[in-house]
């Protein structure tokens, strides 16, 4: 019996000792009145949490919820209001950073596409050399085109307008314009010359713009008739446009016509 009593006593002592071991949390739970079991871990962690930066606490809590996921939901919320509020807040803050880094991982992929252009540009460094010749060719082409084209049209026209007699004869002889058309053009030229006579008599400068318009229209008709059948004469007539106008406007030169 004594042995049994001893065993029982030992068992009771052991139970009590265990009970004492488990009780300490309860006095600690005085801070957290609501939860018994969850409280112990939070207080133990909460003191650790404040000193440590939120970034470190979050992973710990993230790991713990997996353990006490069903138990802590209430405890942390109430205990945390003091300490954890920053923690949960930190958790979402830290979580996004994690989410960001993961997207950041794809961005590296994105930079890769962006990188290709540079790589292409680097690899295309020879290409630029190929492009530059093209551009140089393009740039050179206009220059060469402008250089020859500019002198050619200007040179012959200046020679042609001086010889009005030959222009008139060429207009009479050209086959690009029919007889009726030539006669009709002569009629219109005569009408224009008559208007110029009136202009020089009246010296009304307001007529000049109208005369210029009529002159341009008549010359346009002549050019349209000549451009297909006698392009050389059309070019010479076109180049002598201003010289002819100068003769028509100048009273002295006009009298000598």
């Amino acid at each position, binding site marked *: 019996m004594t042995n049994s009593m001893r065993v029982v006593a030992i068992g009771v002592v052991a139970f009590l000792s265990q009970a004492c071991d488990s009780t300490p949390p309860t006095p600690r739970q005085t801070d957290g009145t609501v939860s018994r079991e969850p409280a112990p871990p939070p207080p133990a962690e909460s003191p650790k949490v404040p000193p440590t930066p939120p970034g470190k606490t979050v992973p710990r809590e993230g790991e713990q919820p997996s353990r006490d996921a069903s138990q802590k939901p209430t405890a942390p919320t109430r205990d945390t209001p003091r300490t954890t509020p920053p923690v949960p807040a930190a958790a979402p803050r830290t979580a996004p950073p994690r989410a960001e880094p993961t997207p950041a991982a794809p961005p590296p992929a994105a930079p890769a596409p962006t990188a290709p252009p540079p790589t292409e540009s680097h690899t295309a460094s020879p290409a630029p050399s190929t492009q530059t010749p093209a551009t140089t060719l393009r740039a050179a082409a206009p220059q060469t085109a402008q250089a020859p084209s500019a002198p050619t049209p200007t040179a012959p026209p200046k020679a042609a307008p001086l010889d009005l007699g030959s222009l008139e004869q060429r207009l009479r002889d050209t086959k690009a314009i029919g007889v*009726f058309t030539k006669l*009709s053009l002569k009629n219109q030229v005569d009408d224009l010359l008559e208007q110029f006579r009136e202009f020089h008599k009246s010296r009304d400068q307001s007529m000049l713009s109208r005369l210029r318009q009529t002159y341009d229209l008549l010359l346009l008709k002549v050019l349209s008739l000549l451009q297909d059948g006698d392009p050389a004469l059309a070019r010479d007539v076109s180049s002598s446009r201003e010289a002819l106008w100068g003769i028509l406007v100048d009273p002295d030169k006009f009298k000598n016509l």
Partner: protein
Amino acid sequence: MSGRTKVRGSIGAAAIVMAGAGPALAADDPAVLKDLTAVIALQGQPCGQVVTATKQGENDYAVACKDGSKYRVFVNPDGRVVVQKQ
């Protein structure tokens, strides 16, 4: 016989005159048509293109345009080209 020969001769002459007069009046020369087209355009009249021209006299044509309009193109005694709508 003499009467018959006279009749035949007169008929032949008339046929020659008629045959000669027909082609002479029609101006199918493309150069003339183009010239008349240009004249009408120079006068500012709507035509488009002269498709047929009939010569009515010296420097006198009756023309039909592609758009259906008809004109008389001639040179008056003053030496001016006139486009007259018909």
